[in-house]
């Protein structure tokens, strides 16, 4: 599968949008990623700038992103990515922030102190993709059982043959042995 490109390949790099310029004014560098089909601005930030810029984007009267709609955890070919979908109820505008890390140790800063809803979304990203969030109050699995092995939405994940009834993971032979050794009535 080819590497996902966020926008159709363009000859010239996209110019910074409204919020890219706003962050620039406040001394935070961002990489513009253009706009999506619904005219929503997308930009990429360095991991270390995330909490600072989210706080700024939420608390500033001009931007006022009070609603965190979604955190999407994405696995790309050579990196892991977190996509933050922000929305402002006062200006009716949306913004998409992306953060990338290497594949060995996916650690992201937590934004739970800014939006309470990030708590569960970050737990979900940990559960499904194995992302760690620094500063999260209680990072544990949310949808899968606590003793689950592996991160189901990773591309290299192999689902267990019998996830519900057997210990995980079990080989096919082990499974058939157990079935055969059952006392027959």
């Amino acid at each position, binding site marked *: 599968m080819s590497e*996902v490109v966020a926008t159709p390949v363009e000859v010239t790099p996209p110019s910074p949008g409204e919020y890219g310029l706003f962050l620039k004014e406040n001394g935070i560098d961002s990489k513009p990623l253009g706009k*999506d089909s619904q005219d929503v601005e997308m930009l990429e930030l360095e991991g270390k700038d995330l909490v600072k810029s989210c706080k700024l984007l939420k608390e500033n009267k001009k931007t006022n992103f*009070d609603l965190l709609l979604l955190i999407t955890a994405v696995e790309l070919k050579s990196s892991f990515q977190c996509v933050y979908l922000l929305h402002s109820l006062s200006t009716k505008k949306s913004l998409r922030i992306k953060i990338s890390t290497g594949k060995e140790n996916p650690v992201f800063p937590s934004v739970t102190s800014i939006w309470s809803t990030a708590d569960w979304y970050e737990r979900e990203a940990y559960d499904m993709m194995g992302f760690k969030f620094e500063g999260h109050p209680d990072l544990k*699995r*949310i*949808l899968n059982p606590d003793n689950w092995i592996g991160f189901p939405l990773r591309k290299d994940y192999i689902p267990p043959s019998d996830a519900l009834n057997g210990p995980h993971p079990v080989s096919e032979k082990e499974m058939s042995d157990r079935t055969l050794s059952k006392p027959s009535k």
Partner: protein
Amino acid sequence: MSIVKDSGQTEKAFKTDEMVINMGPQHPSTHGVLRLILKLEGETVRDCEPVIGYLHRGMEWLGQNRTYVQYQALVDRVDYLAGMSDSHAYIMAIEQLAKVKVPLRAEYIRVICTELNRIISHLLSLGIFLLDLGAMMGFPFYTFRDRETILSFLEEVSGQRMMFNYIRIGGVFKDLPKGWTRKVKKWINEEFFKYVDEYEALATNNPIFLVRTQGIGYMDPNLGISYGVTGPNIRASGIDFDLRKYQPYSVYDKLKFNVPVSKVGDVNARYACRIQELRESARLILQAIDQLPGGDTEDLEKNKVELTSGEKPVFSAEDLMIVAKGKQVAAAFKPPAGESYAAVESPRGQLGVHLIADGSSVPYRLKWRSPSFNNVSILHEMVKNQPVADTVAIFSSLDVILPDVDR
């Protein structure tokens, strides 16, 4: 009960130990399978931790391992009470990405069916809500009676009672059956509005109901926004946030309706908002049926000829092709690489689909923003220091559907 405060001595004498008990995961009034770990001090909830995931079916994994067209049939299962909204959000995300133009008639049909679905969902949630409060007097039977009528309407349209799979890429599965619009209109005009009055007569001013609901489970609007709560829950706390009005999609900008908003923010306000939404949805359906381009099915081609000879046609040849002849997209439909986020106002709040495509026939990443997930995440804040009996009332008033939480 009044205890004279003698420098805290009596309170100390009567202090009870905190006890941790489980509510669920098989509690009949938890709208699915939810487990609450409650820390109780006597009858008061001191802390609460919702444990979710018992209905996790891996909807995102399934989506990423099926083609766009195959996955259409599964999306109704995300929130099984609002299957039309699920389909609508998913299909809108694809259509935004592939820039598919939807015929006007199909948009109207989508709105009619989604609003009927909203009524179904609210009727069920209202019925169960009263049942959770202990009203065994038959209120659910009233709502379920009318729910049944709408289910048979939708069955006529889509062939299914709950998992409709009706909204498809580029339009809808097939056109409305003959005489259907007249039947729906007659039922709403002659019966449904009366039924809503009937529900209100049964519950709204009932003194026991008022004691159980008023001033209980207050949701602070700022806290709600911070937790991402949407839908009737946040509108009952005074925030006018309804995507149908706020960012009109489909043909909602051509229809007139009010968004019920209450500033009270308690359990009763959320109930009142839902009752009002029943009437608004019915109004929307009546308007959409009146404005439906092409009218009833059997007149579609005739109308087209008549209209093109005289004035400007209200629908194009494309409408005929996709709606009347039931044309479907190819099984290996490939939207271009890109990213889109489409959201609709489901009965429970903002339901969104974040889609990242790489140009193949399978979604690269598909993420659901299900409203119940956010709505249940605020529960522990709302039940803190409330009697344990109110926990069920508060949870029920949030109208959470657990398959929507767990996906």
